[in-house]
Structure formats: structure tokens, C-alpha cells
């Protein structure tokens, strides 16, 4: 199987406005592989064609590395693995040594009770809740008390079978961030992330020495090298890396390192399309230290229908807090090109 062509399709969802680009890789065997990026520059496409056309998809790791730290890396890795799976007539997770589990735990961002209620009705059991930050902090104790009150109420409303994680939106000074992390510990958030405005190692180290509230780190990384720093510094409880941006193989590599620190991985995926969710299912089903997969928050029924139509299946549907695994070769979904044309920007 040799790669013959690479095409990019910038897409936009009419409801909600989520935008992403699908990458299509064609081969001489007729098999087609699909990947996803936030966006791809024309220059990156030119370079991808130069480097990738004529190659075998089985070289997915080597080829991905040629684009390290570029958005092309994630899309290319996804599409090449899709093809490599199809060439082997097996789901990607089997290529990667899986499955390690038969379903994938899910979490969704939900800012308010109405959204949480709606997602809970859809089957969600874990919610990533943003901290409501004031314009200016006038009183630290008041701020902390307000946060505690809000999340105590949340914990109560969720009952015994649902959980929450906290997104600090990278908005707090070190002192307030520390106080809030300490105050949240007894409420058992699954983790807190993006708590501090300046997440340097010193501040994180102070937080993790004053409490055991699990810290999720890595959200903003555009390459996996710094994961080594996070683990070595000993402040991270959950590796949060953007799957769409980095690709499956780099995340798998980061997971291999994190495993040696008994640290789990939970890929981020907030704004992208359903294909990245599908790719995440394969990663989650093949690494041992996977914890939970973020699924983009889509409340509008029209948008959900459109996303399902794009990948010809309800792969983002959650049952009792879990996503189901595809079983067909490659990423295991067919992209509907008529929907692609309809969504083209």
C-alpha cells in the first residue's frame, strides 16, 4: 500500500461553530485514511505531500516525527494509523497492542447545572467544571469560601455515582490557586487543571506539597518532551495532552513514560470533531494507564446529528459514563464525504 494523494478539508459546524480540518490520505490500493487537525497551513500540506506521497502507511511513526510540534503531526498520525489498520485488516487499537479494556470512560465540560443535567440525561457521569472567576480578587477568603460553597453544592447534587474535575481556566494567582486546591481536596474532584496563571514548577510544587488534590497538567503542550519535566518534578497526577494536536503515537509514548510514575493519561479534546474522539477510543483501548477521555461538549441536537453523520455512527454517545469501542479496521469509521462537502468552510 503506497500513499498517492493528500487533501485537506477545513470544516465548520453551523451550530456551535466548532471548526476543524480533516486530512484525507489516498492510496494505490483504494483504501483511504482520515485524520483531523484544528487547522493546517498550505505550507504544511505542501511539505506533507513531498514527504509522505509514495510512502507506506506502516511508517506512521517515522513520518509523524518529521512534523514534530506542528499541527500536521496529529492529523497525519491519525490518518496513517487509519490506513495501517486497514492494511492489516484490524482496528488501530489491535495494531497498538490492545485492547486493554472494553470501553472508554468519558468526561465532558459543563459549566452550569442545566448543561450538566442535559449531559447526565445523555449518559455522562463525569463533568469538567470551570471555575467562575471574578473580574478582580478583592478578598482571598471570600473567593475561597465562594468556590468551596459552589463545589460542595455540586458534589451534593451529583450524588454517589457521578464525579467532577475542575478547570481553573489558568486564571488564578499562585496563592489563591493553592488555597483553592487545598480547600477542594475533601470534595474529591477527580482532578483540577489549569489552576494557576503562571504554572511554573515552583508554584505547582507548593500546591502539591500542601494538598493531595490531583493535578492535571500538560493541556497546553505542543510537544511531548516536557512531559518528562512534569513527571520528574513530581507534581502531576494526570497527564492531559491534546490528542488532536499531538497524534496517537506521541501520546502513547508519553503514556509509556507516565506509566513508570504510576501516572494516568487523559487526553484533552474540547473543540475538535468526532474523528478525534474516535481516534481517542483507540488510544484509550490500547494503553494500560488510560483514565478518561474528554468528549467535546455538544448540546445542540442538530450539531450532534451532524457529527454522527460525518463519521457515520454515534461514537460520541455515552452510556453510563462510558464510550464504546469500534471494531472495524483502521479507526473503524467511514467518513461521509457528502457531509464533508456540506460542512466545508
Amino acid at each position, binding site marked *: 500500500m503506497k500513499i498517492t494523494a493528500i487533501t485537506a478539508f477545513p470544516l465548520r459546524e453551523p451550530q456551535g461553530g466548532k471548526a476543524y480540518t480533516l486530512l484525507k490520505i489516498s492510496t494505490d490500493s483504494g483504501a483511504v485514511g482520515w485524520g483531523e487537525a484544528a487547522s493546517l497551513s498550505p505550507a504544511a500540506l505542501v511539505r506533507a505531500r513531498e514527504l509522505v506521497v509514495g510512502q507506506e502507511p506502516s511508517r506512521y511513526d517515522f513520518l509523524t516525527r518529521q512534523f514534530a510540534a506542528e499541527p500536521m503531526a496529529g492529523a497525519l498520525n491519525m490518518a496513517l494509523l487509519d490506513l495501517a489498520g486497514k492494511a492489516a485488516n484490524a482496528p488501530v487499537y489491535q495494531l497498538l497492542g490492545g485492547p486493554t479494556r472494553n470501553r472508554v470512560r468519558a468526561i465532558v465540560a459543563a459549566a452550569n447545572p442545566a448543561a450538566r443535567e442535559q449531559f447526565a440525561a445523555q449518559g455522562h457521569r463525569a463533568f469538567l467544571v470551570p471555575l467562575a472567576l471574578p473580574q478582580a480578587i478583592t478578598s482571598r477568603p471570600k473567593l475561597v469560601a465562594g468556590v468551596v460553597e459552589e463545589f460542595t453544592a455540586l458534589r451534593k447534587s451529583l450524588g454517589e455515582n457521578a464525579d467532577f474535575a475542575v478547570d481553573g481556566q489558568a486564571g488564578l494567582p499562585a496563592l489563591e490557586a493553592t488555597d483553592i486546591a487545598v480547600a477542594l481536596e475533601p470534595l474529591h474532584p477527580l482532578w483540577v487543571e489549569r489552576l494557576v496563571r503562571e504554572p511554573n514548577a515552583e508554584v505547582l510544587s507548593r500546591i502539591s506539597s500542601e494538598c493531595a488534590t490531583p493535578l492535571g497538567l500538560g493541556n497546553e503542550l505542543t510537544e511531548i518532551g516536557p512531559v518528562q519535566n512534569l513527571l520528574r518534578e513530581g507534581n502531576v497526577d494526570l497527564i492531559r495532552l491534546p490528542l488532536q494536536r499531538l497524534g496517537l503515537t506521541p501520546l502513547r509514548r508519553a503514556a509509556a513514560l507516565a506509566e513508570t510514575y504510576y*501516572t494516568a493519561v487523559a487526553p484533552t479534546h474540547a473543540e475538535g470533531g468526532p474523528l478525534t474522539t474516535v481516534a481517542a477510543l483507540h488510544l484509550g483501548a490500547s494503553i494500560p494507564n488510560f483514565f478518561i477521555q474528554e468528549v467535546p461538549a455538544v448540546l445542540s441536537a442538530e450539531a450532534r446529528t451532524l457529527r454522527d453523520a460525518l463519521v457515520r455512527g454515534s461514537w460520541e454517545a455515552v452510556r453510563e459514563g462510558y464510550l464504546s469501542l469500534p471494531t472495524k479496521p483502521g479507526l473503524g469509521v467511514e467518513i461521509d464525504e457528502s457531509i464533508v462537502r456540506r460542512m466545508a468552510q
Partner: protein
Amino acid sequence: MKPFGKPLNRRDFFSVNAGLGCACSLMPQAAQEANNAGRPEPLGAAALFPYGSKLRITNVKTFGVTLPTPEQSDRPYVFVKIETNEGVHGWGEGTLEGKAAATIACIEDFRELLIGADPMPVEHHWQSMYVHSFYRAGPVIGSAMSAIDQALWDIRGKILNQPVYKLLGGPYDPAGVRGYYHIRANTPEQMRDVRAKAKQLGVTAIKGGIPGYYEWIETNAALRRAVKHVETMRVNLGEEIDIGIDFHAKTSPSVASLLCREMEPFRLLFIEEPCPPENVKAMQRIARRTKVPIATGERLVASYNCRELVELGIVDIIQTDINHVGGITALWKVGALADISGVKMAPHACEGPIGGLATVHVDAAMPNFVVQEICSGVEPGVKERIWEEWFGFPAMRMVNGKFPLPQKPGLGFELDEKQVAKYKFEGTRPMARVFHADGSVAAW
């Protein structure tokens, strides 16, 4: 010459300037090598003969022993009996859970090193087994070495006519060594029964675990259930019993940090294996965030592998196991480095009775000894009755909360190999394989 039955005459066994050893050492190197190839006297050991005893190891017998008990079916015992040219023999144990056949094979691999050797220089043999294994030692080599080391100490004690703890400088407490039993109770009523029975037996410490299996990040429900379980244990066992809680390395540093902190109000003796052992700095993340004493080490082989735990101030109590760490020699050394560093010892023992009896000797001779484990409950079961049948005394049962010190030379017991052979080896049995609800591998 009889090895015992009459007071031993040291001169019967030691000669500084005579015998076989000298003859060997006068041979040219090539001749020695040739000699070594043709005869079972290992090269090198012969150089020590002039300063050793006239005893020679003549046979190394291994025993796999499967007891007819449902409990601990994953750990058929691995025993070794080392025989000498003077009729003195020693017993040792290297039971390795889930890997019995591999450990027996590993003991057989050491046979060549032992046959024809003087059993007395135990440190020399320990070094040779460890260093000459090149890869140093993991659990299989460590357990095989442990069995051989214990048997050599048994012989040494018999030859020197002393219980092993006296050779090690003990006892610190002539009344014995403090122990704990396990609690398998789940309900408050069962826990109160254990409390009553423990009081009756004079037992002052009990160890339990936490329910279920844990992912590396956990839900509120799982965290609360674990804390509630330990709280129930404290309430129903009462304040007069020391409680150790074994996390069994089934928790990650993230989960364990939360649980340790929330269990601080229960005044625990220790929390054991809060995370797996390979990454010592990961365990440090837990230790630096809790006041609960951290105990760990049952899976570690040789003192080398305990060094970092001590050096980084992570561990309060080391729990190396005499059947895996490298026998009496290695357990004592771990105790030594711990003591110098202000760290205490509470050796693990969850295998057979020989290792159990051997560990009591080391316990009795350690200034930093806290408490000795035995994987038994307050009520003896089938296993304990077989042990009594083997040894003629209730081996590893406490009297007034302490394991009594053996009085006889060596490890302090006689064991008829025909009694042991009654329980035939039915092959290695795997340890429990457990899984999370989604089919992924869990630790128990």
C-alpha cells in the same frame, strides 16, 4: 562423628592448618581448575578452606509442597534441605508466590556452587550467588538465595551449637518477638469478634486491607468507601489494638496520597505499600504529604534495593521478606542500614513456616524491630495444624502476643522430610488475576 547429641567440639570441625584445603591451595592454578572440573569442589571456595571448617556440602534437596488448603493455593512452599558430609543438615525456604517451579529450578542452578563447598562461610556464598549471577537478583534468584542462605544458617547454628538469633547478637527481648495476625472481617460484628479473640490471646496488633481495586485516579465513591472501611475497623477493633493497613500497592501515588491523609485520624501503626515499588520517588510524593508512617519493602531483593527508600526519607518501616530478600544474611543487613538511618523493621512473612521461624531469629536480634507479620488469623486453620504436625509445636502461633524464641541450635526445629513429602508438589499455581469492570488489568 555426630553433629549433635553430644556437646560439639569445635576442633572437630575446624582446622587452621591442615587437611584438604591446604592441599588444594598448594596446587598450581591449572591443576586446581582441572581438579575443579573433575570434582565437585568449586574453584575459589577452596582458597578459603584453610580458614574454614571440614564440613562439606554433599547434597541439595529441593521440595515443592502443596498443602490441601484453599487459602494460599498460589503459594506451594519451596523448601531446600542442604546435607553435609558430617550428617548435619539445614532447612531453608524460598517460597515465591506464583513462581514455585521457577524458584525450585533456580535453587537447582545454584547446586554446582554448593556441592563440595564448606557451608560455614555464608556471607561468601551469598556474595557468590548474587555477584556471580551477573544480573544480580530479582525475585526468583532472590528467593532461591533466601532458601539456601537460611539452610546455611541452620547448619551454622547447629555446628556452633547456638540458635541463630544468638549468633546475631540477640535476643533484645527474651520473651519473644511481637507479631500481628491478619483480619479478614468485613462487618462490624466480625471485627468485634476478632477484637475479643485478640484480647484473649494477648495479641496487640492486627493488619487489614482496603476493599476493591483502584484505578490510578479514583472516583469520590471509591475513595469514600476505602476510608469508611478503615474507620469501621478502628471503631470496632478499639483503641487498644495497633492497626496496620495494607494498600498492597493497588493504589497509585495520587490515590494513596488522598487516602493516607484521610486515614490520619485513625491513628494507624502504618500504611503498607501505598504504591508499587519500582519508582521510589513516586512513593516519596505520598510520604511527603502524610503523617501516617509508611511501610514497604516486601517485594525488594537485597539491601541494595532498600537504599533509596531510606536515603530519600520515604520509608518509616521496612518490610523485606526473609524468603525473597536473600535470607537471614540480607534481612539482617537491611535491618542494619535501616537502624543507622532511624528506620524501623517489620518483616513480611506470608509463606511457609520455615521462613517464618527463620525471620523470628533475625527479629530477635534487631534493635529497630517493631512487629512481625504472619499470614494467619486469630483462629488457626488447616495450614497451622499441618505446621504443628510437622514441627511438633505450634509454629508461628503467638503466645501473649509474641512469637516465642526457638531454643534449639540453628533455626531451632527438626523436620522429617518424609512428613514434608506427604504433601506432594502439584505444580506452580498462579497468583490471583483480577480485573476492573472494563476488563483492564487490576492489582489486588
